[in-house]
């Protein structure tokens, strides 16, 4: 009989968990809607910004603009020090969302280690930071509550060190790793090389055919500088808001699965409970019947 009570307790506890995960799913859905809206509005701007930068980089690569020696566009094949910034969530319970980012960072770390390149790891988000601290990987710096509340001013402040170090030649590359939002059910891992600006895949022929207005190089230098800074700033900020949207969608999904699992579990526990109950009744009946039989 104790067995029956045990099962009953189990059913109760599982259905309580189901209620919790169901509520968390609803919360994530509401938060996702807001984050998604923000990310969607910014996406177009981010894309165009990258396009403009890519085109400028391409033109420099194809020598259409002479006399530019902005370090942000110069490739370095033998880096000695690189910056890696990763963005994870502050909270767990969102499936493989954080671990995917961490794995990508680890892969990148390994690659650089094989090339004997020093890496400065800069983290945003509690989960990733905790992981690397636990595994005794050195972090250059870490910010905890930025990924749950993206803020342009704070993200600018954070990225500033990396940009300055890059411009002054202390680091040779800058990567941003984050898990971005693709749609309600999928996240997309981004490993973006922000600096130096990639000029691969640019078709020089396209450029040669278009006309180009010449502006003084001195002016261009300044312009590029301002543009690159904005480009990096915005990419950082966009990574944050995209990651937030992805986090909520991942959590929504994880909680949905958890709720469904709990539902299945309650169902099978109920079957188990009924079987046990039936067995108990049968035993009781047999006892009574055999008692009556023996009295005859």
């Amino acid at each position, binding site marked *: 009989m104790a067995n029956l009570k045990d099962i009953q307790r189990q059913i109760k506890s599982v259905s309580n968990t189901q209620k919790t995960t169901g509520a968390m799913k609803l919360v994530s859905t509401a938060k996702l809607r807001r984050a998604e809206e923000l990310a969607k509005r910014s996406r177009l*701007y981010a894309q165009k910004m990258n396009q403009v930068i890519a085109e400028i980089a391409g033109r420099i690569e194809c020598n259409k603009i002479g006399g530019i020696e902005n370090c942000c566009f110069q490739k370095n094949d033998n880096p000695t020090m690189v910056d890696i910034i990763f963005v994870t969530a502050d909270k767990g319970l969102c499936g493989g969302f954080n671990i995917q980012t961490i794995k990508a960072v680890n892969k990148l770390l390994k690659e650089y280690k094989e090339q004997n390149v020093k890496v400065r790891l800069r983290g945003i988000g509690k989960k990733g930071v905790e992981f690397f601290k636990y595994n005794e990987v050195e972090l250059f710096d870490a910010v905890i509550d930025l990924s749950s509340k993206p803020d342009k001013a704070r993200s600018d402040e954070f990225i500033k060190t990396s940009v300055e170090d890059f411009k002054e030649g202390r680091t040779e590359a800058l990567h941003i790793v984050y898990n971005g939002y693709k749609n309600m059910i999928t996240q997309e891992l981004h490993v973006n090389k922000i600096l130096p600006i990639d000029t691969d895949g640019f078709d020089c022929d396209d450029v040669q055919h278009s006309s180009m*207005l010449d502006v003084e190089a001195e002016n261009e230098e300044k312009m590029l500088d301002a543009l690159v800074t*904005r480009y990096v700033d915005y990419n950082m900020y966009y990574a944050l808001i995209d990651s937030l949207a992805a986090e909520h969608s991942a959590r929504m999904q994880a909680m949905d699965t958890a709720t469904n699992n709990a539902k299945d579990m309650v169902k099978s526990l109920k079957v188990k409970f009924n079987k046990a109950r039936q067995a108990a009744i049968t035993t009781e009946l047999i006892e009574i019947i055999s008692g009556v039989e023996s009295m005859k």
Partner: protein
Amino acid sequence: MDTLKLEILTPNGEIFNGEALSVVLPGEEGEFGVLAGHASLTTLLTSGVVDVEKKDKSVEAIVISWGVVQVDEEKVIILVEGAAPIRGNNEAEIAQALDDAKKLIKDVADSSAAIAVVSSKIESAAQRLL
């Protein structure tokens, strides 16, 4: 007359996307106008007013803060940090747009002369709409 494809984007979304006859931009070194078929050019914009002459010859003023413009033969892409278009269907909406634009320019412009220039421009743009 030829038209050019104009896109004005801010981090908060699109402000303008469509055909235009011409556009006047507040460049870092002074105002310049762009017609269809303009040579390729990429330059910075300072805070000021973008005048868009639309297909029906009406002119729309859009106040912008810092930005960058990319011009090529058939299209003009303007990326700005903040923008406030002077538009609206009735007096109240236009007045609201005007207030927003003034607020934006006060936040970004550093000299009172620049603010005054922009203010007078948008006032007259608003007058045209009324």
